[in-house]
């Protein structure tokens, strides 16, 4: 099958790749662009390990054709820290023991990053609903919730400072 030229912005950088139309974004990110943070966990859009941000929305990149990213702004976990500084959410995951094996973590962070912009002051139930598309087998979720709560507080405190 003929390959097509695909251009999009990845973590602030313009990238050009040649892809087959059937290639899934997760594979292009991981195997062509070597951004291996996003992971493949289930392939049926249930686990959320492949979650990335596309044009300001959380998307499961295992169920998204790479060609659909033409011209898009794509952000992966590799783009979360900036200027050598961890994003408050990353720092909070460390502080609150929000990860164990780390496999779900990039998806959790990318969903959490977007979720906190959708809802900067979430209740525990808001977090449970807002993060429901991401599975974790290790943590029992409780410390992820604490991490997101801490990040929300830290972000809000910084905004008010």
């Amino acid at each position, binding site marked *: 099958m003929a390959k097509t030229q695909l251009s999009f912005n990845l973590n602030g950088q313009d990238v050009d790749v040649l892809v*087959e139309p*059937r*290639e899934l974004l997760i*594979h292009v990110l*991981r*195997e062509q662009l*070597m*951004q*291996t*943070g*996003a*992971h*493949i*966990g*289930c*392939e*049926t859009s*249930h*686990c959320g*390990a492949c979650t990335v941000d596309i044009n300001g929305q959380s998307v499961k990149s295992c169920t998204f054709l790479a060609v659909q990213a033409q011209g898009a702004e794509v952000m*992966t*976990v*590799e783009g*979360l*820290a900036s200027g050598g500084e*961890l994003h408050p959410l*990353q720092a909070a*995951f*460390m*502080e609150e*023991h929000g*990860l*164990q*094996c*780390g*496999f*779900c*973590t*990039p998806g959790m*962070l990318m969903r959490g990053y977007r979720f906190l912009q959708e809802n900067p002051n979430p209740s525990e139930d808001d*977090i*449970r*609903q807002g*993060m*429901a*598309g*991401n*599975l*974790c*087998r*290790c*943590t*029992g*979720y*409780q*410390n*992820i*919730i604490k991490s997101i709560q801490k990040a929300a507080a830290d972000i809000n405190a910084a905004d008010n400072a």
Partner: protein
Amino acid sequence: MSAAEDTLERQDQLQGIGCSRKRKEDPRFIQGKGNYVDDVKLPGMLCGAIVRSPFAHAKIVSINKEKALALPGVHAVITADDLKPLGLHWMPTLAGDTQAVLADEKVAFQQQEVAMVVADDRYIAADGAELVEVEYEVLPALVDPHKAMDDDAPIIRDDLVGKDEAGQGKRTHNNHIFTWDVGDKDATDRAFDNAEVTVREEILNPRVHPSPLETCGCVASFDKINGALTVYITSQAPHIVRTVITLLSGIAESKVRVISPDIGGGFGNKVGVYPGYVVAIVSSIVLGRPVKWIESRIDNISTTAFARDYHGIGELAADKNGVIKALRFSALADHGAFNAHAQPTKWPAGLFSICTGSYDIPVAYARVDGVYTNKAPGGVAYRCSFRVTEAVYLIERMIDVLAQKLDIDKAEIRRRNFIKAEQFPYQSALGWEYDSGNYLPALEKVLEACDYEGLRKEQAEKRAKGELMGIGLCTFTEIVGAGPSKACDVLGVGMFDSCEIRVHPTGSAIARMGTITQGQGHQTTYAQIIASELGLSSDDIQIEEGDTDTAPYGLGTYGSRSTPVGGAATAMAARTIRAKAQKIAAHLLEVSPDDVEWDVDRFQVKGNPDAVKTMKEVAWAAYNNVPEGMEMGLETVNYYDPPNFTYPFGIYLCVVDIDRHTGETSIRRFYALDDCGNRINPMIIEGQIHGGLNEAFAVAMGQLISFDEDGNLQGNSLMDYFIPTFVETPHWETDYTVTPSPHHPLGAKGVAESPHVGGIPCFSNAVIDAFAHKGVTHVNMPHTAFNVWKTIHQLGLDN
């Protein structure tokens, strides 16, 4: 600053045992810089895709590779016939059986590996797999293990016909694998005959799957010039994998390098050696290029590797006061088409004989019969020590059944039967020596914290109104830390574990371990042990695992053995170093070694607090100024063979509300008190407990690998297979007591599996307790809304 304050401050600076040190693994994971097997990309790497059987039981009439081979980008299509000349079409299992690497003339379970297509990338490999034409002649499938030993049962294993054993003792039927028993059967039978009360219940631990978020996979890379093989693999036991590869391939073990990089969760799924690994390795050897094989989720749930499938019968004999006089448990174990049971070699039913639990039971007998069926091979220990979940589930369910029969409160019956604190070390009727325990105070602590009496009152009020509320208790004892090499080996290798520590001249250190973390935070906690033992800051201690070229041989991480065995090896290695350091310090201080004493991070001349040498100073001296006759350097390796298992315990309480119209359950409260002995990193322990409880919740409330009558697996994606999300998962409350292990150098016991083992019966006991007033004594898992509703509906409670 007082001397005491000074000591405390120096201790704090070490970040040693007992502190909730933040994890050193995290920075790479939170920045997307983890390195999992599927992240490995080698020059010239090819990808393998497996052609799988659509049938549970069928003869292979023919395999036509031509169309697949004609597809541009396909390099090879490998079948059993290609492996035969190498003698690799079958492989040994950990349980003494053999397993087809690729189906040899027949398939014996749905999704069995039939061929592997090796191609330039995963897209072409998948296309190639679609083009392999396999003609099957379908055979009747054997699905129900209870029918496995019928006279007319289909024969699963033609290769074993006429053989009276399959690696685990005498067979009596073509589908029989083993019969294992333990205990005094006659005395137990007599106790039952003479008992005032007996109870009996059929109790299933259904077939489930660990489903870590990362599936299994490997990258095999054979260097033809040097004859050396490197395998990146999702393995909880890389050293054993290396030994197996050598035994299978004949490549010298020194030329095989197995690397377990970051692992996205194991939970028992990544202990075994799977056909995909073997074929990827063979492909790499044949093609001279690296070959990657990564399972899909459907492959994972369907083939590698189920847990449980124990069809148990529990019986207790007791007096009228509920004091247990005897226990008789049995199980029919469905091992699937090949006995790929993950086990210490001599333990065909794992450590099932821990089934006497936390109770002082004078006499007991247990028996397990293993059979073949047309299902995927296994089983593995899903977040537990070998078959401990099954054992604990039986005893913790049966004690509730006994309580109901005698109308004794479920907490009270436990009080009456607990092994008492003064009985430890306790010799169980089935042969174990429990190292330590103190159950009663822990139970009382939980009952008080949860206002157990208040809950029972509330339950009575709810029952009067027709509402369903259940209170579950579980007071379990685990057996972990396999294990003493006199009892435990894997393929002949004793189940020790190891730690090598090297202290550098400037006082930092590296330690390499035989274990391998899959999220447990080894990089963090092992450093804490060394920090406390050697007085060096844990931040200056690097921990490495998983590369067989650098790490000392170890048996890996499963069965909660890292702290009990690897942690002990770490402490012992550190103590060897400290003993040498003491001599060097004495030499520097110009006193006898007996005249110096250890003080947090330094040696001090007894009675002279000003005459000190810190460990850092000693480290420097170790490389330039040692006592005469002493070797330079400060390093050692310890292979720790534990004298006994460890026996962590826990007291769990669960409150569930049940919607009597839909069968939906709502876990209102889950309180988990764990006693894992001395605690190395409380933060990590709590995280492990949360995770284990969530996996217990998944098993008890929803997980099931089920088959239709033709052996077709139903629901093999995460659409159907239950992994709880944020929404379903309850809130967890944790608590602890500390009863150190007397034989472990740190007094620690291991923890990560307790919440799974203890959680499952606790959820079940809660759900079943909701129906206790209606005479219900047992309902099998999983307690899905559908299953719970069936109980409700049968009892007419939904009207």
